[in-house]
């Protein structure tokens, strides 16, 4: 299914500028929400740009739009502010990917919607 403009544009503050929210109890939500558990309210918060890998895998085949990147590493990263993201881990020798490794966010092209569709950008992580 091709990503169309409204769906893409709405997530730009998160994908380009890592805009998140932090509740009064200190929990970070990325993306920010309309409703938070327990009736809490939240303030704007920008995600930390660096963190560590909590767990990872290397995909031999990815979804069609990502096929040219295979094999590629995916990781769940805990950023230094405690927030967690799922991101592709690139610019690393796949044999060196391991739990605990330090990474930082980098702006990359995530996918193209065919030859005529949108170019979709966002965040990946690279070794720090």
């Amino acid at each position: 299914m091709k990503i169309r403009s409204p769906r893409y544009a709405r997530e730009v503050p998160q994908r380009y500028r890592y805009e998140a929210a932090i509740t009064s109890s200190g929990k970070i939500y990325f993306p920010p929400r309309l409703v938070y558990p327990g009736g809490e309210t939240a303030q704007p918060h920008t995600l930390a740009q660096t963190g560590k890998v909590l767990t990872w895998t290397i995909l031999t085949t990815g979804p069609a739009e990502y096929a040219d990147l295979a094999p590629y590493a995916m990781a769940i990263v805990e950023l230094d502010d405690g927030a967690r993201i799922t991101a592709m881990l690139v610019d690393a020798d796949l044999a060196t990917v391991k739990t605990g490794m330090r990474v930082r966010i980098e702006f990359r092209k995530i996918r193209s919607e065919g030859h005529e569709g949108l170019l979709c950008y966002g965040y990946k992580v690279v070794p720090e």
Partner: protein
Amino acid sequence: MRDVAVIGVGLQKWGERWDRSLRDLFAEAAHNAINDAGVDHIDSMYIGCMSSGLFAAQEHLASMMADYLGVTPCAATRVESACASGGLAMRMGWMEVASGLSDIVLVGGVEKMTDVTGDEATFALATAADTEYEGYQGVTFPALYAMMARAHMERYGTTIEQLSHVSVKNHANGALNPDAQYPFPVTLETVMNSTMVSDPLRLLHCSPITDGGAAVILVPAELAKSKFKKRPLVTVAGSGHATDTIALHSRDDLTWLKATEIAARNAYKMAGVGPKDIDFAEVHDCFAIAEIMVTEALGFFEAGKGGPAAENGLTARTGSKPINTSGGLKSKGHPVGATGVAQIIVIARQLWGEAGKRQLKDPRRGLAQNMGGSGGSTLVHILERKG
């Protein structure tokens, strides 16, 4: 709330059924269940199906399936909870009978997955994850479970051999199941050497793409006792339902299936039993690691001990806690919406003594655990034989 009995079941051979459409798969399984039960009508029906829209460009299954089962204008409800759609259909059907609203309810599930390309199927399945914050980022389902596997392995020392033992066991069981997609055994070596899909999960740690349907007939226990006596009375002793965060990265503990723990706790409480009272279970082995983590969350084994349990044969058909005597999703197949209903069929048949070569000795209580996505939703049902 009334006690609810399962009195009839129906499905067909699962696999790449080029010869069967979405509507045929459901109608066939449902019709078989109606005949098996010996009912002459149904009051209502539920259809569990994850993604007929993306797989077959067909929604409005309520109307379609009632029509093609020949029961129009029967009330029909399609429910969706990703891979837990079938288990959810079971709970909804059980609620409708337990509440007294209806007396004869058909609970069915179906998925037609081979009318699209492999890439299209992968995409449809990926919608069970967080589309914008997981799928967009590049994950597939094998990748999500692979990350859980790695976290589990690094925390508890679970090994790839232990994961592989799960696949071997499930195939050994499935080899005795004529309706299974892959009714043949596999060796540990074959599993461990199969193609890598998403490190550390290999092809034979992953459930397949399958076409299939499944259906059961539910009636109040009193009606079963008076009118449907050909089999021992098997009732729903407990039902539990819980959700967890949609994204794996939002979970409290990447190595723990919390929705399974909570749903099971609720089902155990309703049934007035605990994990040790369950004689056997059908669990959601979408990936081998899932079975290991589920057996821990169900309370069968301590956290981190699910791997050794599988390796040491505790979960084999002849073990102390048989898991997936049908072959599980791995060998039996995983037509997503049908899986949860088929689990009920397996439990019922074991309790009735109709499990053929896979029959356990005198089981009294079985548990079905059906899970959506990477654990974002879970349904647990406990069935008991009363006689």
